[in-house]
């Protein structure tokens, strides 16, 4: 064989294997939507997505996915409040504040936390956090605290606030969206921190030097120069972190409580979308309506993470072109 032909053959085969990931992605999308199509066709898109009753095993069954979607939204919001500041704070600390030794110690640690098995996090939430919440925190917050507040005899505090604590801070079960969000925060911190850290490190040193030479101190430089310069990278970190939270399965399956109802308060139980798939797929008979409905949930999840990936890809692409343009 002539060497040119051989080279050509190698190039063709390498390129075709390179295309495999495209094919896999297309296959996943195609397959999910193919299996999901039937439920949307049979029940109607609006009725499935906004229906408020998820009773897949009743007779006749109800496939309103709104409680599942609401569960995911609630858990995601609650987690974001904790995970975004913690993740970005970790990144700022590692990239800007920590000295070399601490940095070399913290970075691998964050990486380890990133590959920590989520089933162990769920287990920890079940065995430790949930009992703490229901057996220890609940009596303090919903019994002792209102009593103390009532004894103050102040206007407002002894009446409205005390009643609020009595009603709302009672934790019936430790398996609720707060516990789930706490564990999801542990899951999301390393994701947000590692991407955000890359974005912060990519800010040219000259920016910081210019800021210092104008007399700005460290915090001023971070807040007014480094963060604005890396804001697109930081938002990519946040978006991908949110994607992780939405798709995380084991934690919400084990500690979110599992009730397929719309949560109204932070101590309510919920059944987010991944938990519904994981919990019910084993019992759903092949090709039954329930099976198709679960693929419908999967398709919605896929679509959400797909859109999030696209947005973050768009942002980072735009950001890169800007950065090359103003390269120092």
């Amino acid at each position, binding site marked *: 064989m002539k060497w040119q032909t*051989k*080279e050509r053959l190698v*190039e063709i085969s*390498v*390129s075709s*294997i*390179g*295309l*495999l*990931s495209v094919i*896999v992605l297309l*296959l*996943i999308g195609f397959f*999910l939507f193919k*299996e999901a199509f039937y439920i949307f066709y049979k029940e109607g898109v609006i009725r499935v997505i906004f229906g408020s009753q998820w009773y897949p095993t009743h007779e006749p069954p109800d496939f309103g996915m709104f409680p599942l979607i609401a569960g995911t939204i609630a858990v995601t919001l609650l987690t974001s409040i904790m995970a975004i500041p*913690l993740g970005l*704070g*970790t990144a700022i*600390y590692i990239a*800007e504040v920590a000295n070399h030794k601490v940095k070399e110690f*913290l970075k*691998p640690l*964050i*990486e*380890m*936390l990133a*590959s*920590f*098995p*989520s*089933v*162990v996090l769920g*287990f*920890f939430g*079940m*065995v430790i956090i949930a009992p703490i919440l229901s057996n220890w925190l609940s009596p303090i917050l919903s019994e002792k605290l209102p009593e103390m507040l009532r004894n103050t005899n102040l206007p407002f505090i002894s009446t409205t606030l005390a009643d609020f604590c009595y009603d709302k801070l009672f934790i019936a079960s430790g398996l609720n969206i707060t516990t789930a969000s706490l564990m999801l925060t*542990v899951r999301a*911190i390393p994701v947000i921190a590692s991407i955000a850290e890359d974005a912060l490190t990519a800010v040219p040193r000259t920016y910081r030097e210019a800021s210092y030479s104008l007399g700005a*101190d*460290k*915090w*001023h430089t971070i807040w007014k120069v480094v963060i604005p310069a890396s804001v697109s990278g930081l938002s990519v970190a946040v978006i991908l972190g949110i*994607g992780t939270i939405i*798709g995380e*399965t*084991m934690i919400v399956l*084990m500690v979110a409580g599992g009730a397929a109802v719309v949560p109204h308060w932070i101590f309510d139980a919920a059944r987010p979308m*991944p938990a519904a*798939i*994981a919990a019910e*797929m*084993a019992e759903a008979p*092949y090709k039954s309506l329930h099976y198709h409905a679960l693929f419908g949930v999967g398709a919605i*999840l*896929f679509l959400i*993470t*797909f859109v999030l*990936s*696209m947005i973050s*890809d768009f942002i980072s692409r735009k950001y890169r072109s800007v950065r090359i343009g103003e390269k120092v």
Partner: protein
Amino acid sequence: MHTIENMNKPFELACKRKLNIKQGFFLSLIRTLGFSGAITLFLILSFVFYNGFQVLSWEFITEPPIDAMTKGGIFPVIMGTILLTILCMVLVIPVGVITAIFLAEYSKPGVMLKSVMMSIYTLAGVPSVVFGLFGLGVFVVMLNFGTSLLAGSMTLAIMILPYIISTSEEALKAVPYSFKEASLACGATKWQTIWKVVLPTAMPGILTGAILGTAKVSGETAPIMFTAAAFFSPGVPRSVFEPVMALPYHIYVLATAGTHIEETRPIQYGTALVLIVIVLAMNLLGIILRLKQRKKRAW
């Protein structure tokens, strides 16, 4: 002398002090936030180690479960996870490395490169439970593998593919251009250069990525839940078409679905400990390898 500067001095000092307080406050806030992840990791690790060590024994690791899993060891469970991980890596490494070679050496800017990059990026963000659904539909049912070692490994392989591709690509791109030029100047063809020069130079980096990938794969539960995992199987599977037990799934099942949740608590702790040790050992190995390479690199 009463110049304007001097008159302003008290005011300036006050401003400076205020700034210092502000800076001090925010920097210490950032310091606290920065250690949150580390502290949480430490807390969870000490919980698992403290409870797990009381169960751990030679019998626990080398014997199968008995009495409806309330007693005995977890030998088949450990073997299941090891087999799943090894088979997954055997499947994914060739594909991942070749895709990385395509991206680093053969691709030209254009629609094809863009779509490959986009797919890898998107695949990396797909939730693991969605991979599980895909594996169930395609490998278990359509290709008729059944709930099996093979179906689970293939599902895991697809899940970890983007990670393997990106770490391999990074390793390939770190090979200096002068190496390639030297090889090409000696009359080697492009493929000879890649095969004899680029790949061997990048191999340590590729392996490090693979080891870190192993750590991620061995802890995953959702993708194998309906593709590979069995509630109970007596021993090591004899073929790839048999279901296996796996450490993460074992923890989940014993902690939530079993009829003896409280009685099996010690076994749950022990299983969690074994899983954590495997995952962290792989992680540490990868991190140490990477540090060594960075030190050894002569170019």
